[in-house]
């Protein structure tokens, strides 16, 4: 067990959430909703089994609210764009266990959110983008943090702003794909 360091500035980590309709964010497993404008408290699920009950996070357990150190770390762990609708930064405070690639914290609250825009259809992408923008606005209003629409590139480790021009260019490249000769 290492020594405890004291501070007053919360850590900032990266997380991803599932979108819970109408405009909530939920755990990556989709098991619980993060309450808007309420801090998220950690608990150890092993406590339910009366197995060494302890307050989360404990140094030698895996409990606590997890967050990656950077976005690259998050993506490297396999939390890629296609699996989660919302990605963003989260403030971590209380007891925080600093790990190699991230943190386990006692308390957390999102600080900035990005709604991952993935057009579902080819024809109505502009309307979908407007709907995504509206949804991001609603999430941001509900949680009291900035929430913007972003588009992940499937094979890149970074993301770029989604704009109508980007959507139009994607559409164009799709249409220009040569047909495969059988």
């Amino acid at each position: 067990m290492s020594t405890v360091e004291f501070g007053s500035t919360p850590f900032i980590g990266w997380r991803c959430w599932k979108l819970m309709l109408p405009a909530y964010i939920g755990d990556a497993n989709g098991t619980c909703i993060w309450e808007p404008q309420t801090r998220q408290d950690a608990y150890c699920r092993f406590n339910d089994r009366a197995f060494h009950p302890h307050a989360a996070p404990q140094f030698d357990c895996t409990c606590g609210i997890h967050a990656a150190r950077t976005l690259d770390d998050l993506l490297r762990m396999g939390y890629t764009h296609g699996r989660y609708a919302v990605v963003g930064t989260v403030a971590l405070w209380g007891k925080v266990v600093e790990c190699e690639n991230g943190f386990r914290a006692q308390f957390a609250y999102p600080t900035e959110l990005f709604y991952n825009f993935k057009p579902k259809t080819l024809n109505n992408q502009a309307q979908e983008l407007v709907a995504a923008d509206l949804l991001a606005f609603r999430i941001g209003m509900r949680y009291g943090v900035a929430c913007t629409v972003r588009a992940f590139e499937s094979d890149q480790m970074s993301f770029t702003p989604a704009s109508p021009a980007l959507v139009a260019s994607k559409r164009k490249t799709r249409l220009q794909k040569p047909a495969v000769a059988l």
Partner: protein
Amino acid sequence: MNIGVPQKVHEIVPLQEPVPRPALPAEPSEPMRQPVKEREHVDR
């Protein structure tokens, strides 16, 4: 989430919790005036 081996423990006590305060309810506008009931005319 595999964040690796734990290295250090911190105790962070922020001066103010980074949780946005719930928006205050909008100030009530001027109270709706109740329509004045017409007094019944009473002959005295």
